[in-house]
């Protein structure tokens, strides 16, 4: 079978095991839903937020951030933990002894991230619209922005996740290594805390990492005009989003390529 056919077979297999794993389902798939529900409930007493003339509900403010968090979790957290586990529990060693190409293996992983990430984002948007009554953008160009930020963000996060999976020394330590990084990024990148309330120096640090740019791209889609004034330099800076994510994509790709082994290299 060709690498691509096998890759497709791997996507089916990976997606099946994803949905059969309760830990992954909660901490990766449903986590943004839980956080959206908590933040909406916790801050609902504040009423509407935002610049004059562009006020929105707190749920509407958090929706783009949670979509961005979902992309980060589905890519980075999911793959970094998953592959580190597979390395330590012998899954990769077994696959390495079969004629499965590493390319098919990664097509399977990235495909799984896509299937689950798309489903997650769709459900988040649907829940925001139906349950929280959030108004969705109607302009086609906004949905075009959504599409490219989503795809670029997801591929970048998947590659960064694959690269990060080389760091944990064992499967058991994988969550301990990965989750703090991912959590920290969510706090400083405008996902949990309102972006414009963060001090400039923290915003600058967050700008070094991809999540800030994904969240910014998503805010440009879902927040009404007028909100761009609260961004750095008062602009959505979509060019910056594309450049930052493009750089991280290349970094992730190179690191994945260099660090991946079916088994830990021996001395």
């Amino acid at each position: 079978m060709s690498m691509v056919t096998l890759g497709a077979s791997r996507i089916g297999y990976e997606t099946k095991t994803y949905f059969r794993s309760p830990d992954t389902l909660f901490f990766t798939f449903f986590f943004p839903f839980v956080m959206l529900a908590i933040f909406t409930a916790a801050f609902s007493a504040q009423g509407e937020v935002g610049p004059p003339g562009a006020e929105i509900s707190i749920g509407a403010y958090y929706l783009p951030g949670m979509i961005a968090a979902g992309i980060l979790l589905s890519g980075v957290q999911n793959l970094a933990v998953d592959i580190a586990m597979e390395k330590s529990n012998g899954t990769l060693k077994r696959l390495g002894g079969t004629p499965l190409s590493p390319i098919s293996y990664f097509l399977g992983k990235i495909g799984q991230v896509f299937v689950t990430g798309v489903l997650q984002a769709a459900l988040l948007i649907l829940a925001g619209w139906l349950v929280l009554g959030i108004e969705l953008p109607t302009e086609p160009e906004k949905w075009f922005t959504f599409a490219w930020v989503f795809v670029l963000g997801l591929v970048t996060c998947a590659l960064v996740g694959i690269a990060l999976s080389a760091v944990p020394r064992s499967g058991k330590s994988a969550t301990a290594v990965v989750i703090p990084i991912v959590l920290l990024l969510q706090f400083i990148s405008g996902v949990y805390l309102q972006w414009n309330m963060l001090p400039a120096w923290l915003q600058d640090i967050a700008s070094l990492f991809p999540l800030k740019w994904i969240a910014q791209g998503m805010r440009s889609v879902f927040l009404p005009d007028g909100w761009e004034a609260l961004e750095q330099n008062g602009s959505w800076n979509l060019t910056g989003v594309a450049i930052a994510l493009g750089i991280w994509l290349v970094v992730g790709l190179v690191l994945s390529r260099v660090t991946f082994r079916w088994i830990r290299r021996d001395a």
Partner: protein
Amino acid sequence: MKTNDAAVQVRELRKTYGQKNAVDGVSFDISAGETFALLGPNGAGKSTTIEILEGYRSRTGGEVRVLGTDPAKGGLDWKSRLGIVLQSTGETGLVTVAEQLKHFAGFYPNPRDVDEVIAAVGLEPQAKTRIAKLSGGQQRRVDVALGIIGRPELLFLDEPTTGFDPEARRHFWQVIRGLKAEGTTILLTTHYLDEAAQLADRAGVIAGGRLVDIGGIDEIGGADARVPLVRWRDRDGALREEHTDEPGRVVASVVASLGGEPADLEVIRPSLEDIYLQLIRSVDSAAQPEEVLA
């Protein structure tokens, strides 16, 4: 590959970890269609050797050919001709036995029938059960099934029956005999010497990274190691033993001299296990001074 070629050729294989020689000049051949057992205590270099042949580990020195290819350069086509049953696995097992085998069958150009393989390893009742829910012995049978699903020319079995009950072990031996009958070349490591005696045509004994003996399963250890032992109690109740090629004659003379049935009479033909233990012991005692220096 022509059938008269060796399936596996190993010449002066060496593997060094830092200062330690894990494998230190091992040479052997395995002919196509042969079952070869690699025996030795834990840490002797068995697994390192087998993992070099499987392509998992690099070697420090020596020449290796597996199905005519250097394992360090083996591509996907080469891997499709191998079946590998690793020593231990701890996968999450979120898929069923049938799902796992069907998925793996897709990796190979000419796989065996999934249902036939499930039947061969005796997991028909568990075909729709998730692997995580199976017992340890049943999970091991899944490992074996995954090793043979691709219809391998050469099958590596690294301690395949650890955790099997005696019945499952005998069932497994039947499966392996079936594969042998189809012409599969097999490299087996095991701690069960009766298993090696049952399945292997030839065996190599490895200790301290060196091959201390190699030969037919009926020849290993040399003829002297196979001399039967007669054991009995004399009139005072003391245990007596005699190594002899004529145990019948010895028994007859003991009966004659005692004037009756000797107590605790035994005629023991050394099993492969006895021979193996003696081999390993002699290597250990020879290696002692060296280890003191190290």
